[in-house]
């Protein structure tokens, strides 16, 4: 089944300058009881956005009208903890298409790539520069160029290259689906099973 494509994204961003943001913060467990993929954005960072009584925490960045955009910029080790893909669904459902950090937890990164959310890994000093620039100027934009694997802070011209494996890059650029790819390997998988039975 075809997926959403990703090519070049230029957008303002939302800064979240904390480290080790775990998936329990991104989407708390009590909101995992749904059986579809939709609607999780409403509860993205629920316990940081609202207090115990359900009042908006006005100082939290997602409640601050100054900051908006399709790119989330977060401190290192973003997405650690639980494997819940609901965390990625919450981020995308809220309207983000890319997350920039100096370091991602493995499972979150895989889950992101499987949902067309681009995890962009940048050096720590570049990340700090982006966070600082955006804090002072919420209209500052980032340009993420997937074909050239390059991310640019457009107001300053600072730019770095980022890594992504060529298979996943191709999938994102063309909107290809992993499961379609694997279904195409059925004969090879069956042959593997047969060889394996013999080996045992």
């Amino acid at each position: 089944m075809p997926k959403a494509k990703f090519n070049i994204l230029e957008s303002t961003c939302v800064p979240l300058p904390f480290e080790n943001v775990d998936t329990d913060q991104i989407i708390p467990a009590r909101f995992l009881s749904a059986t579809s993929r939709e609607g999780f954005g409403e509860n993205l960072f629920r316990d940081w956005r609202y207090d115990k009584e359900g009042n908006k925490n006005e100082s939290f960045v997602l409640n601050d009208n100054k900051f908006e955009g399709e790119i989330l910029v977060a401190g290192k080790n973003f997405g650690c903890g639980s494997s819940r893909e609901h965390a990625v669904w919450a981020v995308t459902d809220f309207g983000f298409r890319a997350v920039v950090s100096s370091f991602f937890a493995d499972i979150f990164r895989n889950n992101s790539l499987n949902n067309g959310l681009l995890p962009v890994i940048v050096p720590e000093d570049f990340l700090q520069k982006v966070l600082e620039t955006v804090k002072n100027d919420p209209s500052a934009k980032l340009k993420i160029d997937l074909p050239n694997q390059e991310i640019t802070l457009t107001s300053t011209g600072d730019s770095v290259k980022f890594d992504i494996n060529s298979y996943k890059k191709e999938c994102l650029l063309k909107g290809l689906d992993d499961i379609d790819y694997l279904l195409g390997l059925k004969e090879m998988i069956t042959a593997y099973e047969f060889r394996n039975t013999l080996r045992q």
Partner: protein
Amino acid sequence: MTPRTLFDKIWDSHVVRSIEGGPDVLYIDQHFIHEVTSPQAFEGLRARGIPVFRPAKTVATADHNIPTMDQDLPIRDLLSRNQIETLTRNCNEFGIEYFGLNHPKNGIVHVVGPELGYTLPGMTIVCGDSHTSTHGAFGTIAFGIGTSEVEMVLATQTILQPKPKSMKITVNGSLRKGVTAKDIILHIISKISSGGATGYFVEYCGNAITSMTMEGRMTICNMSIEMGARGGLIAPDMTTFGYLNRIPAVESRPDFKSLLLRWRSLKSDPEAHFDREMEFDACEIRPMITYGTNPGMGMAIDGTIPGAESITEGKASFLKSLEYMGFRPGQKLLGHPIDYIFVGSCTNGRIEDLRAFAAMVKGRKKSPNVTALIVPGSKRVEQQAIREGIDKVLAEAGFELRQPGCSSCLAMNEDKIPAGKYAVSTSNRNFEGRQGPGARTLLASPLTAAAAAIFGKITDPAELIKN
């Protein structure tokens, strides 16, 4: 031939195809599913109009959101009930073996898999749950995956996965009084940090590891993910084979002897290269407790929370974490009052954990200020505990044995710690709100939880252990 690690040997023998510049197509021997991370994967199969490719290689259990009292009654929370009913329906429709609520084999997926003999050395095992790393205790490559990947496995019995780097963690030496497997892994994580092993798959070695029971090894491997590792494994040995030999479903297999022969060869070659190696001295490890909001923020139970001046990186996150916990930099936690204890989870919900806890509280009384949640990891653990009279020992000391489930580890059910309350928990995560909105979690071993429950404050368990 180039010497290889055990991880390399298992991984390489499961590669169906390598993609140039991309991930490997990895064959999965055993797949576990539960109610929370599987419904969207089944929806995906329906949308594609395809069946489960190898239904016999997937096993399902209900564990994450189920109540741990009155399990014979309908689940009160409608969303949770719907999620369980959805799993039941999906398993029936797609022909998957299912251990639902009240089934004699029900329990936490990572407790059930090993105790029923689904987890066998040399396998690749995945589940939509990050603590799948638990199964590595048997010498398997086991790791948590997302729901899109659950769908891949259901559809093709394979998964696209980049091969992680390898790390060897050696722990030698004998354990001090009151120190358990949980303390060893909390110590390791406190040194490596909660993200320090990201991108790696760990092999645990050394005599402190090989002298452990399977239960202890599972506790160690379980928390590999808490330092960011993809997973962790331990080479199978006589302890592993002895454990498997006691499982009727394994021991009665016609190919058991030939399996044993093959399992004996599962070890890293002596000269195998690891991308990173670390060593720890078990004698230096004390009973551990965490003070912050990630599992890397741990210290010896009589230790002092680091001073703000000693934190060079991530100071804002450090201070935010302490503020949430209601602690100060430089504070000691010994003697700090606590409100709750939680004993259970895929980390410490096995029979050995309940035995250790019961031995500590036997003949003593729970502090009246403490509310205790004692939750067995599975129906089998619950039954075993009752057979051994553990429920009675607990009752005499003022504790109650609940019914199995993930319970307060992630508080999807009613077992929540109230906001602002301190809970000494044998689970695996002390994240903000993990055990309920505003709950303050201190991770520790079952022995430390027992000592805290008796005295109503953080106590070194070694003090309660008679010589």
